[in-house]
């Protein structure tokens, strides 16, 4: 067999992952031919190196996006931890907004203030009370003045005062 035919056999053995299946004639050739032996070793090492290439994990944000678009997109899907808290925050906000809206729509109206007629009546009553009070105070003051004059002032002055017209209404 030529080196080319031998290498085809080597390839096929690698194809099947069964290096033990290399025919005896090929083994004999490999024992004698350094180039083909090196070829075989290279292919074996190449397979190992390819399988040992570093594997890169799918980033977490991409995986999160997959869950969001799939199982979490349907009603009742299990939320992720981040999604759960976002959902909880949104639910709280909606609940607060609904409560505030309901309160403003259905809360009882404050009691109405006094009417104009009642205000006028109250004002008239107050004016009447104040009028009585003012007159009572004036009367008291005049009486006091008279007593002081009677005790402190000479008879001539008292007579002059008595001759003046009274301030009492």
């Amino acid at each position, binding site marked *: 067999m030529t080196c080319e035919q031998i290498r085809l056999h080597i390839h096929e053995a690698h194809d099947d992952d069964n290096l033990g299946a290399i025919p005896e004639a090929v083994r004999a050739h490999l024992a004698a031919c350094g180039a083909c032996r090196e070829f075989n070793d290279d292919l074996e*090492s190449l397979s190992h190196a*390819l399988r040992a290439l570093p594997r*890169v994990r799918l980033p977490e944000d991409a995986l999160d996006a997959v869950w969001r678009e799939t*199982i979490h997109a349907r009603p009742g899907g299990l939320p992720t931890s981040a999604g759960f808290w976002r959902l909880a925050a949104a639910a709280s906000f909606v609940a607060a907004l609904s409560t505030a809206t309901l309160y403003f729509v259905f809360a009882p109206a404050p009691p109405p203030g006094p009417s104009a007629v009642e205000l006028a009546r109250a004002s008239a009553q107050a004016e009447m009370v104040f009028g009585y009070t003012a007159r009572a105070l004036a009367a008291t003051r005049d009486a006091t003045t008279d007593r002081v004059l009677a005790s402190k002032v000479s008879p001539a002055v008292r007579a002059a005062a008595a001759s003046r017209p009274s301030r009492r209404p």
Partner: protein
Amino acid sequence: MTTNEFEAAVMEHKDRVHNYARGILRDPEDAKDVAQECLIRLWRHREQVEPGTRCRSWLLRSAHNLCIDRLRRRSSRPEIVRDEGAADPTDARPGPERLTSSAEVAGRLERALLDLDHRDRAIVLLREVEGLAYEEIAELLDLKMGTLKATLHRAREKLRHALVRAEVTP
């Protein structure tokens, strides 16, 4: 497929789909978008997809188709978008010393994968990285078995040559 089965399928295959898209597109953002879209599509088609191996094939086929769409849209600009993890292509470092660290080998290998066309890259990734059976790959990429094997042999040769040229023992 029930909701629980969908969740299990996502957790099982999300990194596989993401890595495949990353391997084809060589662009982290595009790969993330494709993986995301692919998993969302699975949800929309969950009634037609059975859990297990069929689900894996369905996801990888969907990812492959989405990647091809992106590559076509990207045709006005160069296909190769440098992956952050790929080795610096200008770092030739000629000399007798062989690069031995696994990170360097991985970097060179990723660079060599970039030089394959997207179909060859898809076959290598599905077979050598994801470990899919030939029948599954042939069905997924709509290829005949003979074509698939010949393409894989050619792609392996290219990778081997690229690594040998770069003085890297694969």
